[in-house]
């Protein structure tokens, strides 16, 4: 950027602000001009001093002549007085006596030259002698004629003094003349020199300021032009010319321009990169057809995903209306409708059949989004298409499978229900006639009575089997209506105890009831809960093996109520535990002839408990078997905290 600016002065100057530079450019010639004026002033001062000297020289010459003239007249007067004794001759003498001292003082003040001063001192002495001489003459003359000899002597002596003075004065005059000439010459010289200096400085100042202004302005103009160029380049997006990084205003402006350019370039770069990334993403997407339409629906861009899904190459489809993606049935209205919807709502989504290039149909999910600029003007549309044919197919298959499964389940339930019904009808006749025979059994012999008992026993077993099947099928078909209500478990347990006591007693077992200490309220179907409890108790009574007692327990278990039926018999073979709740899977097949039971009891109990929102399971205590089930506790907020503390984790089948 910087041209070699080795010179620190240049550097310093370039960094000054423009105002200072301007000031310097204006002040420099002004200073030179003022200097010239000062010189002019000094010249005039010197000249006036020289003229002063000249004037003084003339004054000295005049005064010395005056001294001489006064003394000469005084001497003439004194002589006249001495000769005549007439007073009027004393007039010049008196005049000289009056003005001489003043003149001497004036001379003394004006004399500067040492040689003149020397002669003046001699004149002063001579003047004093002359005046004394004259005073003596005058005094003698007043004494009368007797003093004439003395007067004559005095007169002659006096004459010598005046001549000596005359010589001195001539010397002074001569000297002053010399001095005067010298001074005149000096004045001339000084004046000439100053005039010359003034002229030179004026010329130099003028030229200098012209040069400074020229350089200054051309420098600024050049730099401003560079700036202008760079601004132009900035607008055109071209690289800027190098500029001197001066610290004045233009330099700073250039610097800012450069920074703006760098910033702009950075942004352009970022934009380019972003666009590139965006393009890569769009091009990289294979599963979605992403393309744009202009506001009339003509395709303006096309990504490889669209190519893959629809079959057209970009160059084949660009410039064509997108309605060709629609099958004949919808081509007339749907494309327009979609664009209208996107225009109104910002976006429009649709799922339906679309056409590939080869004419084949595919099921597409389409989203059209209106593209608007920052002023809200419509710029076109982005359209994203996804080939959903496979998914639609699998969904369809899934739906069919589900419907078939539901139909099968319904058919099964219907079949079971129907079968049970059909079975109950003949059972009615069998059990009814059997009961009639039982009622009249005294008419029969022992053998027949036993046969009647067997018929009734088998018939009742068959009936309970049919009833359980009907129950299970009804629950599976969702046809069972539960009557869920708050149940006081203490009361329910009491009822069950009463109902089950004969069964337990007939099995030769003790029946123990562990009633809860506090009132527990469940939320379940009373009849079904009792049914499940009776079933479990009946199982214990039937299958206990070597047990001595059955225990019915109930306790709170978090948000549930847990009921347990426990015996101290042989327990369940651990290998068979997993099959406990499987329908018809009666454990211990070898005992089948001996033991009653449908093999549906636990399966039915499980369905009933689960339909009420509970769970059922088996856990092996130290001895015997323990079946448990849970039903939801009646949610009463003030009991919640109380019961939460008793929460214990449970699983359907606890390992022994």
């Amino acid at each position, binding site marked *: 950027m910087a041209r070699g600016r080795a010179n620190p002065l240049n550097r310093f100057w370039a960094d000054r602000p423009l105002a200072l530079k301007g000031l310097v450019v204006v002040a420099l010639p002004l200073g030179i001009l003022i200097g010239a004026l000062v010189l002019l002033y000094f010249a005039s001062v010197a000249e006036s001093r020289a003229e002063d000297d000249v004037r003084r020289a003339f004054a000295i010459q005049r005064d010395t002549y005056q001294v001489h003239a006064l003394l000469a007249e005084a001497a003439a007067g004194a002589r006249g007085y001495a000769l005549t004794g007439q007073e009027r001759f004393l007039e010049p003498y008196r005049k000289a006596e009056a003005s001489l001292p003043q003149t001497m003082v004036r001379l003394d003040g004006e004399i500067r030259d040492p040689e003149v001063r020397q002669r003046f001192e001699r004149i002063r002495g001579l003047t004093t002698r002359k005046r004394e001489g004259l005073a003596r003459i005058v005094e003698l003359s007043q004494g009368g004629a007797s003093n004439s000899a003395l007067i004559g002597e005095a007169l002659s002596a006096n004459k010598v003094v005046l001549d000596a003075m005359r010589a001195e004065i001539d010397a002074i005059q001569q000297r002053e003349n010399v001095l005067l000439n010298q001074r005149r010459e000096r004045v001339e010289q000084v004046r000439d020199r100053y005039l010359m200096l003034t002229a030179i400085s004026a010329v130099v100042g003028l030229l200098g300021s012209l040069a400074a202004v020229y350089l200054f302005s051309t420098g600024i103009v050049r730099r401003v032009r560079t700036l202008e160029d760079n601004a132009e380049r900035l607008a055109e997006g071209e690289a800027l010319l190098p500029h001197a990084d001066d610290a004045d205003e233009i330099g700073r402006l250039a610097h800012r321009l450069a920074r703006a350019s760098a910033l702009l370039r950075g942004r352009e770069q970022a934009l380019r990169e972003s666009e590139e990334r965006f393009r890569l993403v769009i091009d990289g997407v294979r599963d979605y057809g992403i393309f744009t339409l202009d506001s009339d629906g003509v395709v303006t861009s096309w990504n490889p995903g669209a190519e893959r899904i629809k079959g057209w190459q970009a160059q084949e489809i660009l410039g064509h209306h997108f309605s060709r993606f629609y099958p004949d049935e919808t081509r007339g209205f749907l494309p327009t409708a979609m664009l209208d919807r996107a225009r109104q709502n910002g976006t429009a989504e649709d799922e339906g059949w679309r056409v590939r290039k080869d004419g084949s149909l595919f099921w597409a999910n389409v989203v059209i989004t209106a593209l608007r600029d920052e002023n809200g003007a419509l710029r076109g549309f982005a359209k994203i298409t996804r080939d959903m044919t496979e998914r639609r197919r699998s969904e369809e298959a899934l739906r069919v499978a589900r419907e078939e499964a539901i139909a099968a389940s319904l058919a099964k339930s219907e079949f079971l229900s129907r079968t049970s019904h059909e079975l*109950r*009808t*003949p059972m009615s006749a069998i059990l009814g*006639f059997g009961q009639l025979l039982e*009622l009249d059994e005294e008419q029969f012999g022992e053998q027949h009575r036993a046969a009647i008992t067997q018929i009734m026993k088998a018939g009742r077993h068959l009936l309970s089997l049919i009833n359980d099947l009907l129950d299970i099928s009804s629950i599976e078909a969702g046809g069972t209506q539960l009557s869920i209500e708050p149940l006081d478990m203490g009361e329910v347990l009491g009822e069950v105890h009463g109902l089950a006591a004969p069964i337990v007693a007939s099995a030769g077992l003790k029946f123990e009831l562990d009633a809860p200490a506090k009132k527990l309220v469940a939320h379940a179907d009373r009849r079904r809960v009792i049914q499940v409890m009776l079933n479990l108790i009946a199982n214990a009574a039937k299958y206990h093996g070597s047990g001595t007692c059955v225990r019915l327990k109930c306790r709170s278990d978090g948000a549930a109520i847990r009921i347990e039926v426990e015996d101290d018999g042989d327990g369940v073979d651990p290998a068979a535990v997993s099959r406990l709740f499987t329908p018809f899977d009666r454990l211990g097949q070898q005992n089948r002839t001996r033991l009653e039971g449908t093999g549906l009891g636990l399966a039915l109990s499980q369905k009933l408990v689960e339909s009420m929102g509970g769970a059922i399971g088996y856990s092996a205590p130290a001895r015997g078997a323990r079946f448990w089930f849970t039903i939801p506790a009646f949610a009463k907020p003030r009991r919640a905290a109380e019961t939460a503390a008793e929460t214990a984790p449970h699983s359907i089948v606890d390992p022994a």
Partner: protein
Amino acid sequence: MTSLVSAAEILARRILVIDDEEPNVLLLASVLEREGYRDIHCVTDPKKALDAYVSLAPDIVLLDLMMPEVDGFQLLEAFKRHDRADEFRPVLVLTADATLQARRRALAVGAKDFVVKPFDVIEVALRISNLLETRILYQRLRA
């Protein structure tokens, strides 16, 4: 059971049994004969049931709900249409359909009682005699 109505009076009443299943009709007839009823009529073809009902004018009807072509519900409606509003002619419904809906529906269209098959023969006999007793008392009150 000391009663206002004598046993002989009850046993003399006419009973109509309607069921498409022959064994069930026979069972009910056997139960009734064993109890001592003598005026027992049975219909196994539900299409002839209404005619029998009208011509015999029984004191009580034992009706099966599930029958082909004309089911028990339709017959109950027909009986109700035929009878005068102040007539008390009880219908005891016997059905293998133990669902609550069937029970409610039957009682709603005029059945006076409901028994699920297979039934206890003594219970059925008791219900029949109770209904007949009610009818006799009702007729006495109206006389």
